[in-house]
């Protein structure tokens, strides 16, 4: 094969893999929007908060230690030297469930029947509050996150593909980050689990009923509030997974909340109400932006186009299919 073709294949694979990372963030948005019609602006901060909490549990950091030490002149920093990642993840899941319950109790409950824009504004407020609380609880340092997921280039793939190029050409083998492979496996497991949960469990059916029609679901005795807690807890769990994957790559730090911006074009493309849409949208955006950066950018001798190119793709898509690839078509009767 020619080196150009192999490079193209490499770009396509890496684009798709990056797209999966975006899908992990987009999934959380979709779940909440589907069940409650709320566009959760705080989803990125959820990922940050979950990752901060996970590192906090792993390292035994005392929450609010900075504040406590400042107020009482103490020198508390750590409860214990370290905790196994498995237990830290369990504790983080419990924290995210408590957070979901608190959000329902303190925010959503009081905003039932309000306009979607009010709920959206509430999630903006939530994002800032959560970011501030996260800062106070765990501090602003860059934290190293390691839950045992391997990362770095795959040597196996590199060695296997190095001989694929035509004889005499300069080729170094294909590159894939193992972390992205794991992200793909985890995303497949997540989507399958979500599909099985919503299809074959009683709670899952209730969740779908709420997603289809709030009023009808209420009329058959489904508790809207407990479904909301459940949905926010699940999306908190997904945020934790996204936080782990992104945090492993860059360290856990406050810029992690900005990954939400990566999910927006994915949602526009895939639709706000479709789980498969979040995956397909992510794949398309990842692929599109990497091809644009390397090939269009290379052709025009410009760089850093991938960020805006994703939004350009989303904008073009909006013009032809406003509801996204798999989103529900909005039909309003007059």
């Amino acid at each position, binding site marked *: 094969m020619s080196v150009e073709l192999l490079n193209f294949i490499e*770009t396509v694979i890496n684009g798709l893999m990056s797209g999966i990372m975006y899908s992990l963030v987009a999934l959380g948005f979709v779940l909440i929007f589907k069940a409650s019609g709320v566009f959760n602006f705080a989803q990125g901060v959820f990922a940050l908060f979950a990752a901060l909490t996970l590192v906090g549990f792993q390292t035994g950091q005392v929450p609010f230690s900075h504040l406590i030490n400042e107020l009482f002149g103490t020198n508390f920093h750590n409860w214990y030297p370290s905790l196994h990642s498995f237990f830290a993840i369990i504790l983080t899941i419990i924290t995210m469930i408590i957070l979901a319950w608190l959000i329902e109790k303190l925010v959503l409950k009081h905003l039932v029947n309000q306009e979607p824009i009010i709920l959206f504004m509430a999630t903006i407020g939530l994002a800032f509050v959560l970011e501030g609380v996260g800062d106070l609880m765990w501090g602003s340092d860059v934290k190293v996150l390691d839950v045992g997921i391997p990362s770095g280039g795959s040597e196996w793939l590199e060695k296997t593909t190095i001989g694929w190029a035509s004889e005499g050409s300069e080729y170094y083998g294909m590159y894939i980050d193992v972390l992205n492979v794991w992200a793909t496996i985890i995303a497949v497991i997540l989507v399958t689990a979500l599909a099985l949960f919503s299809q074959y469990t009683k709670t899952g059916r209730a969740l779908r009923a709420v997603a289809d029609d709030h009023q009808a679901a209420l009329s058959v005795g489904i508790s809207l509030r407990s479904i909301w807690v459940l949905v926010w807890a699940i999306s908190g769990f997904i945020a934790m997974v996204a936080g782990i994957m992104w945090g492993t790559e860059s360290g856990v730090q406050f810029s992690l909340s900005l990954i939400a911006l990566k999910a927006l074009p994915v949602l526009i493309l895939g639709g706000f109400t479709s789980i498969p849409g979040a995956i397909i949208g992510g794949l398309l955006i990842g692929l599109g932006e990497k091809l644009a950066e390397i090939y269009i950018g290379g052709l025009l001798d410009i760089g850093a186009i*991938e960020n805006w190119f994703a939004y350009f793709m989303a904008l073009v898509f909006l013009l032809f299919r406003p509801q996204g690839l798999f989103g529900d078509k909005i039909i309003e009767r007059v």
Partner: protein
Amino acid sequence: MGLKKMIVGFLGSVIAIGGFLEVATADLKFPMLVYRTGAYAPNGIPNADGFVDYYKMINARDGGIGGEKIVFPECETGYKTQVGVECYEKHKENAMVFQPMSTGITYQLIPKASADGVTVYSTGYGRTSAKNGKVFKWIFNAPATYWDGASIAVRHILKQNLGNIKGKKIALVYHNSAYGKEPIRTLQVLAKKHGYKLMLLPVDHPGQEQKATWLKIRKQRPNYVLMWGWGVMNQVAIKQASSIKFPMENFIGIWWSGSENDVMPAGAGAHGYKALTFNAPGDDYQVHKDIKKYVHDKGQASGDGSHFGTVLYNRGLFQAMVQVEAARVAQKIHGTSKITPAMYRDGMENVDLNAKRMEELGFKNFAPPFKNTCENHGGSGLAAVQQWDAKAKKWNMITEYMYGDAEVVDKLIAEDSTKYAKEQKIAMRCN
């Protein structure tokens, strides 16, 4: 009492108290533009802590500068240019000096501060040509500029290649902002001079996703990669470089891409990564002992004290020290402890931090000596290369402090500053 009256009363009290505090305590005002929140907080916090601890130490140990206490109100910019300008407007009254901690903010403040008569000190960042004191009366960027940095990095590469880098490929991975773009011109001129090929690879804010950039590097195999990054961009770039097995000893960051924060997330993969620096790491200097004695041991450390001795904390100490020294020099020149912003500028222009003075200030061997003059606001232009040891988790200085390529840099500075002077109709000074 009605709600309206309560609000008016409350606001009135706040303004009155604020005004009282301002009058009662404002001796020497050194406003701080900081970013303790947002995407760049991990870098902003240790740096700001260094400033605050130093000012507190001077107030506690010496009773201020010449008997005048330092007040240092903080204003949170979040590394946002517009917010930085608002912070400047809010605090410019009677301010001695502004340290914008952002090249974008510095560019915005240059005309404003020059008109207002306020000193701006952008330590090793900001507009490079502000080094020319003949044009930029109120702006200082000592001890080294980005163009010094770019040419020092190339000089280091030249040394490694026995002076010949013709045909080599050097990539610049840069923050796609005023800051990141600053070294491009110098690197282009140096490419012509030394015959290397320059690859430009911008990374958009914040730099969380750089896969395409590093795929390009993997395909095109540059011999060296230089980085002008900040915040998460540094961590992701170092991790990606390690992931594609780029030789880390050929990866050199500017002094803002060489903190502990930048290398820790990549773990062992960051071993061998290099960065320029104009100050030493570590906490074994006299200034640290004084800070420990007068600030930390009294429970008054800024933050939780965990950044003590880190690269960015030490840089904050160095920046604050220069600012304090400028005030001392101004007091000496004008024979009064109650200096005005204009007097302070004179002090900054006459700062002479020679080795003896550095030692007196507790900074022996901490940074190379430098001196500002009317013509030269950019100091010595000296920087060294430090290398990360991932096992020991510490930076080691691997070169002496070296000069950049004055032949190239000085010419570019003269060109750029003269152009600016013509555009702004600024009469040259120092004649």
